[in-house]
């Protein structure tokens, strides 16, 4: 599903690499936490997965494709097989919940009939059935994140990438979001989630990958957030 071979990434005009010689493999259907302090390289790791950036050295394989060899015009097609969720939800404030989810289908040219059928289904799945016509501003943070997850999942992606999805939410709401992500994971979707939330990582007991100053320092199945620092 995902393979990093000796991947390094140095941003232009910077001497210190953001990622240094990282090698790892993530299998289909896994649930992986990506932890590490700010500036440890988590975001760079995710950006490489999305091919927002290219690796300076080494190879990144996602969904069986070598991203370095993927030509620019094929990138959108690759991204259709990924779902992404962010800390700040990234919803369109002037569109309703339903339209926000439908937007993801419209812009990749899905027929109207498919959209009308799948949008309510996926909203039901994330627990927002019947809230199609509400505006994002009327919803709580947890509900907004559910909309974002619905949008990420509406294409039934093979891989869901979540960048601190609970970063803006209170602990109780976060648990709800994690249950939802776990459910999505059980449908066979691989989930890679960057987080700072110690409680969640410790509770879920999933595989934990820890980065520190761009290096892979820990890769532990059924791990916890971290050793005491």
């Amino acid at each position, binding site marked *: 599903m995902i393979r990093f071979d000796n991947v390094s990434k140095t941003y232009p005009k910077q001497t210190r690499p953001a990622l240094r010689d990282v090698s790892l493999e993530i299998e289909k259907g896994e649930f992986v936490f990506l932890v590490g302090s700010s500036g440890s390289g988590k975001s760079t790791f995710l950006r490489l997965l999305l091919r927002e950036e290219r690796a300076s050295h080494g190879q990144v394989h996602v969904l069986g494709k070598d991203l370095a060899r993927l030509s620019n015009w094929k990138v*959108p097609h*690759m*991204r*259709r097989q*990924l779902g992404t969720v962010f800390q700040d939800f990234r919803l369109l404030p002037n569109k309703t919940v339903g339209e926000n989810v439908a937007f993801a289908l419209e812009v990749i040219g899905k027929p109207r009939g498919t959209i009308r059928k799948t949008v309510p289904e996926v909203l039901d799945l994330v627990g927002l059935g019947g809230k199609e016509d509400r505006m994002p501003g009327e919803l709580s943070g947890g509900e907004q994140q559910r909309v974002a997850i619905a949008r990420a999942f509406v294409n039934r992606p093979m891989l869901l990438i979540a960048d601190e999805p609970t970063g803006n939410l209170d602990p109780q709401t976060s648990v709800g979001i994690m249950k939802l992500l776990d459910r999505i994971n059980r449908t066979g979707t691989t989930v890679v989630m960057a987080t700072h939330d110690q409680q969640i990582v410790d509770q879920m007991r999933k595989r934990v990958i820890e980065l520190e100053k761009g290096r892979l320092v820990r890769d532990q199945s059924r791990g916890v957030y971290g050793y005491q620092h």
Partner: protein
Amino acid sequence: MRAQFVLSEIGVGLRRNLTMTFAVIVSVALSLALFGGSLLMRDQVETMKGYWYDKVNVAIFFCNKGDAETDPKCTKGAVTTDQKDAIHADLKDMPSVESVIHESSDEAYKHYKEQFGDSPLVNSLTPDQMQESFRIKLKDPEKYQLIKSAFDGRDGVQAVEDQRKTVDNLFELLNGMNYAALAVMALMLIVAMMLIVNTVRVSAFSRRRETGIMRLVGASSFYIQMPFIMEAAFAGLLGAGVACVMLVVGRYFLIDHGLALADKLQLIQFVGWDQLIAKLPLVLAIGLLMPALAAFFALRKYLKV
């Protein structure tokens, strides 16, 4: 791609940048009106050059029957075949003459009609009122005086004319105006393009949230860029439409009505409506394509895909 979705995006984008859109439309309209105007001016010069302008340098006009009474040079009556033959032979002997063409009065009538069309002046003429002439091409156009001194005043010759001298001043003026129009057009076009680049930048910035999400969910770059390019193309097309109206109205008021040059300067055959209308598709195409291209290149810089 869903047309309705794209169209609504264009509408939203144009309304958001209403002032900028307006500026784009006006500058495109002005530059394209100047462009169309200069094209027409070139046509006008071509029309006025007439049949012989590019082919010969000097014309020797012969007296015809009518001239015998009115022109002091033709008191001896219409030119005779012998006189013509003699002149032709003399011309052949001159080393600076490259070629001589004989234009009969019938041919002269035909060429005149081609140039001036159906003006009342032409309709009052008959072929035998037209002058016979020798049209002479010189190896060196500057040697015109040589011909003039040799043949002016000979029996049967009414006049020796340097074809170019008579109209060159006018053409130079028209050409000068043409270049000025083209220069202003180029300037306006640059202004228009810069406005479009800026509009696209503002537009891309105000929609970065949408485009960011489009990118994330895997919309193709074509799909993401299309609304911006269509916006620019649409504004450009509106500007081109205004330019077309300006050209049509301009011709109407300059030539047909208002200034009514067609009535005041009956000797000049003005460019026709058909020539004007033939230019409009080109003006519209440029109005559509130039802004679209400008937007496309601006997007490469301001919209990461």
